């Protein structure tokens, strides 16, 4: 088991390094850079000579390889550098922004799980076959709804029209409720789809009939037997869905005017603020790796048949 965890940790480091390098290359390939964007403005009245001095002070004219070595070394030492746009340490910016996004992620992911669970229950246990077939189509449609549109409608209806949840002048968890729940809808769709198809495969198995023949109720069969059997593929998908939350955060924070990592990412892209952007990429990738590792670690807890294989593999 220790060996398994070590090898997974090594893989994770490799993924982090790969993402870091790839993002560096992509940012290098883009024409122009943050220094030019900031100081080229004619109203600043800087001469070409002054601009190139500034560029030299940021190391912007060094060869790509030297810059890469510098940035990598700095990052390995735990230094995320300074924002070119504001001159503030990147770590301080991240520190200010992450709670908002974390709250958004928690609300939207939790909401998505509850939504998926209740919807799947309805779609599997509804009394009539045509009704079940119709419910089965809904997640596919839901995954096609554009997030920004859904969120604008949510603000208009829920907040302004029905006045259920305020979106202006709120902070902390209160501010995360409406955007989180709006984001939960498109995120719950793939979870529901994967769970439903896994659940249907499980329900076609003979042991389900045996349970019914013992007098178990449909609800009991669903929660005590179908759910644990259908969970592994759903877990795998929920790891991937994490990426959608991050992408959704960019749009959602913009629509709701929240100062989170998504907003920060969007500004950093607009300004080609390489240091900020790279830090956000690293954080996202790290989150992704941790979530997927957790998912893999949970599998053997759910399915006893995997425990044996894994023990054999680690021996």
């Amino acid at each position: 088991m220790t060996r398994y965890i070590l090898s997974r940790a090594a893989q994770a480091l490799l993924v982090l390094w790969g993402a870091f390098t790839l993002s560096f290359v992509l940012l290098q390939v883009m024409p122009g850079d943050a220094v030019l964007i900031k100081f080229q403005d004619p109203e600043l009245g800087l001469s070409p000579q002054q601009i190139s001095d500034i560029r030299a002070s940021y190391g912007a004219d060094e060869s790509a390889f030297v810059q890469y070595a510098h940035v990598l070394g700095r990052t390995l030492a735990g230094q995320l550098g300074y924002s070119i746009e504001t001159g503030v340490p990147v770590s301080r910016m991240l520190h200010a922004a992450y709670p908002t996004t974390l709250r958004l992620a928690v609300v939207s992911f939790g909401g998505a799980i509850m939504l998926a669970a209740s919807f799947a229950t309805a779609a599997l246990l509804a009394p009539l076959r045509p009704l079940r077939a119709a419910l089965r189509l809904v997640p596919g449609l839901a995954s096609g709804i554009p997030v920004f549109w859904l969120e604008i409608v949510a603000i208009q209806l829920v907040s302004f029209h029905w006045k259920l949840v305020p979106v202006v002048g709120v902070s902390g968890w209160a501010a995360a409720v409406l955007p989180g729940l709006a984001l939960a809808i498109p995120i719950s769709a793939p979870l529901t789809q994967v769970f439903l198809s896994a659940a249907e495969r499980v329900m076609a198995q003979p042991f389900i009939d045996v349970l019914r023949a013992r007098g178990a109720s449909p609800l009991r069969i669903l929660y005590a037997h179908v759910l644990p059997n259908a969970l592994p593929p759903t877990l795998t998908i929920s790891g991937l869905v994490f990426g959608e939350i991050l992408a959704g955060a960019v749009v959602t924070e913009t629509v709701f005017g929240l100062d989170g990592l998504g907003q920060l990412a969007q500004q950093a892209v607009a300004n080609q603020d390489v240091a900020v952007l790279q830090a956000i990429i690293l954080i996202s990738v790290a989150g992704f790796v941790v979530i997927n590792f957790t998912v893999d670690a949970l599998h053997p807890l759910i399915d006893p048949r995997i425990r044996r294989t894994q023990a054999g593999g680690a021996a």
Partner: protein
Amino acid sequence: MNAASPQLNIRDLDVVYESRGSAHHALKGVSLEVRAGEMLALVGESGSGKSTLGRAILGLLPESARIQRGSITVDGTEIVGLPERALRRIRGARVALIPQDPAHSLDPVRTIGAQLVEAVHLHEPHSNTATTRRMLVGLLDRVGIKEPERRLRQYPHELSGGMRQRVLIAAAIAQRPALIVADEPTSALDVSVQVQIMALLAELRHEMGTAMLFITHDLGLASEQADRVAVLQHGTLCETGETKALFANPRTPYTRRLLADLPLFHEARAPRRAEGPREDAIVVSHLTYAYKGAGGRPGHKAVRDISFNVMAGQTHGIVGESGSGKTTLLRCLLGLITPDSGSVHILGENPAQVEGTAQRALRRAVQFVYQNPHVSFDPRCRAADILAEPLINAGLHDRGARTERIRAMLERVQLPPAVLERRAANMSGGQSQRLAIARALLCDPKILILDEVVSALDVSVQAEILTLLETLQRQLDLTYVFVSHDLAVVRRIADTVSIIRAGTQVEHGPTETVFSTPHDDYTKHLLAAIPGRDLMRPAVLA
């Protein structure tokens, strides 16, 4: 209920499956009864409606099925029209099910103990878990499971098939039901395990006075086990009677045909080919293969010192129960694995060593037909594509020539040309097995390796396929290796036979000799376990 009244009473039952406006009558006017302590065997081929009847008794018909008419009373309670909630109190408590496939009839992610405790608590919600577990230990002990405490903590995949079926039986009898529906309870088990399970069911029936409806396709088994037999054909009960009387003197032509198709009733294959000895198509000598254990250590020896020769144009039967090493032996024959010691020669070549053109030629010359064609075909492929594939692989790109060969082959395996447009998933078991044979034959093989090819088929279809195989062998001068767990089938088709147990060849020789004068205890034991031996005319089996 007094003892004389039947525990199960079915009167004039009509069940209809409805789909998109069309209706299929699965059961028509079925009436039968089973008394306490009695076993009624419900026999019939696939599609006869026997499983529908079993499900109707449990109130578990699929949504598309409707009971049009009739009544089912279990232990005095009318099942037809009973609301779901009331049915749930009856299921598992007064009528219990022993399912067909123990491998998939337990929840794979919950322990045996959790599942058995659940089975009890469904009907005794207030009972204490510790007390229930103590009761279950006794119950598992009663159904013949050793170390019951340990088994309760284990998961289904840690138990053998026979043991899982014992667990399922324990779950079924936990509430002392009045009626047990046993739906093909041993068809997925080895013959020797089958004997044990059937004996256990008989004991429990007599001990608890439970009525049992035994659903089976196996007439031999029914003849040995049941007090009475009911024969179902196309949803109609065509004959019911005391077992002995019914088998001694079947009244309807259908029952007579079912009995005639039993492989038991065929003469053993007579020694053939008077024209003298021919060269050996397959020579296996002192074959040994061990799977590698953890860390490359030598592991479990799957087969040990196996030797046999198969003369060209003859059939060699390989008989063994699950885990006997049959599959490993076949993998060696196909050259998929290299033996640790000993050798295999197919048509003079060593399949594990040939390379390049010779290897491709050998692979075409040795074709493999699987037990379950439904699994080995792409279900969405049309039969025409399935048959064209080996021809395309062989470089026959002319469409016209391909169609020509495919049509000729269909005629050989007696399939109508219309079948070409059908998809594999929509074919019957017999049709898809013919298709599998046709596909194998399109490679112009010299040798067919037939792995349990008739095991999943009804007796009448089984008889047809065996006859077809014999005809093809004569016409095309084929050599067969015929693997089966069914001794009666092997006795009918094989010239020579190997009996394999735990990787060792316990007996080997001409089929007739092995069957009439077995030397090894295991062979004797297997022969004794053939269900329905009593049905055999004394002259057939000495």
